[in-house]
């Protein structure tokens, strides 16, 4: 009886490891196709359009509101210490270091990652991927690699736009609404935010998130059970796994970059 439960545990671990192995093999296959895609950049433009341009609206609007809320809340805390002048530092540091990369990655996972999984999953369910293979076209290189690279390029751009719009949102609330000095907002920000320490690390973070979000989305689509139920499950899993991985990785990256 108890042997059964031990065997069940073993089976679970083996399935998970097998899945992880397939995911890495897929990543390898995707990376092997990079050269080919770079020779046909049109494939890449289309995916940057799908992942980047179409996510621009939600990322911009979210950035604006996150920045404005940071302005309001930051003012509330900082004014208790008479340090409202530092509002710019607070808004910019939290956006550039954390919220920009993380919230953008979560939004992209929801907006573009789910679409990628559903698209690839449906291609598999309707045997379009096998069809390509029949025509001697490698579906991984033709379909998956451009999407992977598109996500990789779009993510840091979107995160930078998110942070920049957020800083402006904080400016509208702080300077326009709450009456903080215009010069203090920018000069304190500039004095305290370091280019390498803060901005570059933020970009590195969003690059890493870009790799993982698109990788998970593509793998879930490629590995789906080819039924309508399977595709719907994969899409859910794609968003949930991406969100968990992004939040977990963010802790690790923050500890590595800023925790000394």
């Amino acid at each position, binding site marked *: 009886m108890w042997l059964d439960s031990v065997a069940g545990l073993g089976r679970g671990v083996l399935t998970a490891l097998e899945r992880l192995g397939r995911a890495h093999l897929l990543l390898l296959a995707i990376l092997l196709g990079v050269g080919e895609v770079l020779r046909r950049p049109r494939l890449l433009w289309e995916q940057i359009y799908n992942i980047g341009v179409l996510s621009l609206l939600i990322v911009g609007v979210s950035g604006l509101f996150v920045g404005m809320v940071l302005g309001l809340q930051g003012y509330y805390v900082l004014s208790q210490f008479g340090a409202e002048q530092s509002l710019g530092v607070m808004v910019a540091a939290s956006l*550039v270091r954390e919220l920009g990369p993380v919230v953008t990655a979560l939004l992209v996972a929801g907006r573009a990652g789910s679409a990628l999984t559903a698209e690839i999953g449906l291609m598999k369910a309707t045997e379009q991927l096998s069809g390509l293979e029949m025509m001697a076209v490698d579906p991984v290189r033709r379909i998956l690699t451009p999407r992977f690279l598109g996500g990789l390029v779009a993510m840091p751009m979107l995160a*930078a*736009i998110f942070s920049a719009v957020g800083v402006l949102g904080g400016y509208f609330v702080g300077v326009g609404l709450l009456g903080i000095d215009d010069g203090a907002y920018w000069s304190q920000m500039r*004095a305290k935010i370091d280019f390498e320490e803060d901005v570059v690390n933020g970009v590195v973070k969003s690059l890493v998130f870009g790799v993982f979000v698109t990788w998970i989305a593509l793998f879930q689509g490629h590995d789906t059970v080819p039924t309508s139920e399977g595709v719907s499950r994969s899409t859910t899993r794609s968003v949930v796994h991406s969100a968990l991985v992004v939040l977990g990785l963010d802790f690790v990256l923050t500890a590595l970059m800023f925790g000394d």
Partner: protein
Amino acid sequence: MGKRRNVELMVGTFMALGLIALFFLAMHVSNLSLVTGGEGYLLNARFANVGSLKVRSPVTMAGVRIGRVESVRFDKATYEAVVSMRIDAEIDSIPEDTFANIFTSGLLGEQYIGLEPGGSPDYLRDGEEIANTQSALVLEQMIGQFLFKKAGESG
């Protein structure tokens, strides 16, 4: 053809927006200035106590930033802190008898080095040491001295 051109246009706009945002973050939000790095020359100064002076803290003269702290080390022979500062190359006329103080900006602000020029006709060169220094004021020490003095007056 028209649709393809539209996609290219949109992607181009998107990439331009992203780069503008990055540029904005670099130039307006952070302290990146294009004339940094190995420019300028090094001056050293010894302090009995540097307080919370850090690498990249500003070095100012007459309130204007003319350089940054490059490193803060501890000299185990003299039990002093050795601070080396990188001074901008165009500020090449700092007199030899210049006084280096560690100040605090505001009551709880960060610490920086303030240089007060002396009257010597000789200027400091790369790698030379500022002889006249005053340590950071540590708030606890000041309060302690104040209380001690008050107690002495009333007794």
